[in-house]
């Protein structure tokens, strides 16, 4: 299988502090790669560099065989890259429905917006209940679902999802991961998802990568990596129960 996303020797960061140092990562078409690592080691930076919000200072990123590093985020959005930002990136003073509709901003999707919206409401009834409410009034779990729903408003060829479990109660996390699995099935997109630990990713990860100090230090199947005591204890500090 060919790699849909190929990141090579990526160096990126802010001002003069480089967060990613010569990071390389390949994700096969239609597969879900989960990048795990402690806070502050570059997971979010990696996604920002791929989606074009952050200009890398070195290395290359290829998507479907074309260089995309340095291409602006708004252009990549039109090429089917959907980035669900950390903290959801909802527009706080717009309603849930307005937020969702903006997910269909790109040409082509806007025409279909009503049909797509209906489908998302059917998938996520909780979101439909809140359709008229300002995004700022939602709970953390609701916000996350609206963020995911917004990501479903246009056809995705690659989904970048930043710490979907962050700050949520276990029940809410379950709902969010159910939505992600559905998103994965419906879109067939290549997915890069980042999380801080193994707890929730067992069912969706085709491959797991450990990111530490700006580099991928270990890659493998979920079972291989999550049961590798050395990996877990060295990089994540403690073994995590459950998961798979």
């Amino acid at each position, binding site marked *: 299988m060919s790699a849909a996303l190929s990141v090579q020797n990526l160096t990126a960061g802010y001002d003069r502090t480089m967060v990613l140092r010569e990071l390389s990562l390949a994700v096969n078409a239609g597969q879900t790669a989960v990048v795990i690592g402690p806070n502050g080691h570059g997971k979010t930076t990696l996604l920002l560099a791929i989606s074009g*919000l952050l200009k890398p200072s070195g290395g290359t990123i290829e998507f479907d065989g074309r260089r995309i590093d340095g291409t602006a985020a*708004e252009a990549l*959005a039109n090429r089917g890259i959907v980035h669900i930002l950390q903290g959801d*990136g*909802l*527009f*706080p003073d717009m309603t849930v429905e307005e937020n969702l509709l*903006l997910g269909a*901003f790109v040409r082509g999707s806007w025409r279909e917006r009503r049909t797509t919206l209906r489908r998302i409401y059917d998938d996520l009834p909780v979101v439909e209940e809140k359709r008229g409410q300002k995004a700022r009034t939602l709970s953390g779990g609701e916000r996350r679902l609206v963020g995911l729903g917004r990501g479903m408003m246009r056809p995705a060829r690659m989904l970048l999802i930043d710490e979907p479990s962050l700050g949520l109660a276990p029940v809410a996390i379950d709902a969010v991961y159910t939505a992600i699995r559905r998103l994965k099935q419906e879109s067939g997109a290549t997915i890069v998802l980042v999380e801080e630990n193994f707890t929730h990713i067992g069912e969706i990860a085709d491959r797991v990568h450990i990111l530490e100090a700006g580099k991928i230090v270990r890659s493998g199947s979920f079972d291989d990596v999550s049961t590798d005591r050395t990996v877990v204890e060295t990089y994540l500090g403690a073994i995590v129960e459950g998961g798979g």
Partner: protein
Amino acid sequence: MTDLVAIIANGIVYGSIYGLVAIGMTLIYGTMRILDMSQGSMVMIGSYVGWWALAVHGVNPVLALLLAFVVAFIFGTATELVSVQPLLGRRNDVDFEMVTFITTFAVAILLTNVALQHYGPFQKNVPPIVHGNLELYNGVSITYHELTMAGLSVALMGALGLFLARTRWGFAIRAVAQDLDAARTLGVPVTRLYPVTMGLASALAGVGGVFLGALYFASPTAGDLPLLLALIVVVLGGLGSLSGTLYAAYLVGLMQAFCEVKIGTTWTLPILYGAILLILVVRPYGLRGTPSETRL
């Protein structure tokens, strides 16, 4: 009773035109974080277009207003391309708000001087859009021109509101105001949106200029007072808040009308500024602003 009618009628007329000129500034500040000092020039340009079309060529007033809209839109877009666009890439490295405040101010001075060179310092009379008076109550009357001005201002502000609330690009403008990066990940082309937003705001100011030109004159400095009043209204309303701008516009309009009727024209400005000082000392973030950041 007679005074009350006069105050309310004049207050609404003033408030509407201040609102029209100021709402563009709010739109620009809300979406781009730029206090656009060239908005007064757009009023000036509008009043010259009004003079050129109505007095020189006797064009149909509707066409004159349309022409002012288009010309000011072009000037506004060009102003953005010259004074803001080159700085966008370095937004995080410089004090963007301060630098664009100065660059747009520089454009304003430039435009004033171009007008001075081209048309000379003398005031040009701009005929009213419609002639005649409407008697309201016991000798209190307003001109049809003022009535049209108020009506059209309200209609344009309403249209802007609908545009922002209902259309794809209106959505995009609000989104950019609230979370720039998130808007970009959804495909909103910020680099194209900025000039269009500034053009749109300028177009409203340009239409305001045609009306104001008939109340005062067309001259190179015709935009100075409207700019000052718009600034006051925008800050008083709470920077970036559209509804706050409307409240503030009518508040300032009514206060001005009150002073003119009850106290005397010479006291209008001191009282207006005194009140503004008081309001801002009590609520530094304006009438409808929030202590943190206000956005559209």
